[in-house]
């Protein structure tokens, strides 16, 4: 074990373990339809991982299962096999594999796939989540943060802003549930979320602020649609937030020590 325990696959496996409460509970409530959707997404993503392994020698990753779970849970319903396959392929290839595989992607492939499906087929209805499934997101977040896989600061920041918004009556329950599941599945991702302490706080807060903003001003949007749009924008902003955090640090050093 000369390279240590923490390889990319360790992170993916622990991430999967952290998401297990949510995944198993969702599978239990959604039954056969959910299991079939999940299997379908895993097969499509697996095929693409295989193609990129053969063509570009990129090792396949367990993260395919995480992406498949997020897509199967949050994708619009009644799409049919062909359109779902198109959306999943687009998200996985353009969001992750062309950049060199999991760990080098800029945005979460599941977010890209869901945004593609949402914008491409606006008439398809989005899934809705009941309270129990949303509650299952809490142990997932706690496990992820405790294992050091999900950014703790991001989750705390997102939760505090959500609590503040709830106090002010800006968040309704369905939106809160969808946003909580989206936080665990899409936003608190070790690869594409911000990587600095301050950046993570800002990233989590920004995600919830987007959710609140869309919930208030986007008429006719489904809760999951709001979540996906917020996750996409928040992950696109993550490098900027990291840069802000680094600039703050640099300028503080300069003030303290007089030079760079």
């Amino acid at each position, binding site marked *: 074990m*000369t390279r240590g325990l923490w390889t990319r696959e360790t992170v993916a496996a622990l991430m999967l373990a952290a998401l297990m409460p949510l995944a198993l509970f969702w599978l239990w409530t959604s039954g056969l339809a959910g299991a079939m959707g999940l299997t379908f997404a895993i097969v499509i993503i697996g095929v693409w991982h295989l193609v990129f392994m053969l063509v570009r020698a990129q090792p396949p990753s367990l993260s395919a299962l995480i992406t498949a779970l997020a897509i199967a849970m949050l994708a619009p319903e009644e799409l049919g096999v062909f359109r779902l396959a198109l959306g999943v392929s687009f998200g996985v290839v*353009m969001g992750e594999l062309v950049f060199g595989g999991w760990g080098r992607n800029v945005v979460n492939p599941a977010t890209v796939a869901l945004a593609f499906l949402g*914008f491409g087929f606006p008439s398809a209805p989005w899934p809705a989540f009941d309270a129990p499934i949303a509650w299952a997101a809490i142990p997932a977040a706690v496990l992820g943060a405790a294992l050091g896989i999900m950014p703790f600061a991001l989750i705390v920041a997102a939760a505090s802003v959500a609590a503040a918004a709830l106090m002010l009556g800006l968040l309704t329950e369905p939106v809160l549930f969808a946003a909580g599941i989206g936080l665990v599945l899409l936003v608190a991702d070790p690869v594409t979320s911000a990587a600095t302490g301050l950046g993570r706080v800002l990233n989590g807060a920004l995600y919830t602020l987007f959710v609140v903003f869309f919930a208030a001003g986007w008429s006719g949007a489904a809760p999951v649609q709001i979540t996906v749009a917020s996750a996409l924008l928040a992950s696109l902003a993550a490098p900027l937030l990291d840069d802000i955090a680094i600039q703050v640090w640099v300028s503080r050093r300069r003030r303290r020590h007089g030079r760079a």
Partner: protein
Amino acid sequence: MARRPDVWRVLTEPLIRQNPVTLQILGICSALAVTTTMATALTMAVSLTVVLTLAAGIISSIRRHIPDSIRLIVQIVIVASLVIVIDQVLQAYLAEISRALSVYVGLITTNCLVLGRTEAYARHHPPLPAMVDAFGNGLGYSLVLLIVGGLRELFGKGELFGVVVLPLADAGGWFTPLSLMLLAPSAFFILGLLVWAIRSWWPEQAEAPEHVPPGRAEAAE
């Protein structure tokens, strides 16, 4: 005078090998904006090719009389005059398509492809090769525009040139249109995939990597 450049090579080089859109990434703005249907893409492609060829010919024939310090102004005046003529012709004979193209015909004036060819080629070559080069570049631009426009119209509406190719599910067929294809981002995706495909086919077109990944620390056992 140097050896006469091979006219056929000058004409065919910009089609794929030196394609102005996919290799030099010039003229992207209009290529993305007007490709929702084949009709607008074709009109735009023809307009640009005509303007580019004529402008190259005119500029090349007066290339020894243009003072260097004001050459951009002269070039833009010539291009803009041609664009206005084309715009008037389109408004007169193809009013509907002209409305669909809106400002983009007028923006041919500032299309970097036009200025790039006149600045880089027409200023240094006699009129005939300059016009051939401009025509070839216009064809290369047209090719990309028609590919992108064809894909977007086919998958966004199930039509080509307004003729139903894939019968829509609403009208009793089987095809459900991808409404994303009619939005601007899809043009980005298609163009990006096109560039990717071309550069995988001809790897010499790919740019040199900006960063070199650090060497992997292999275990020294």
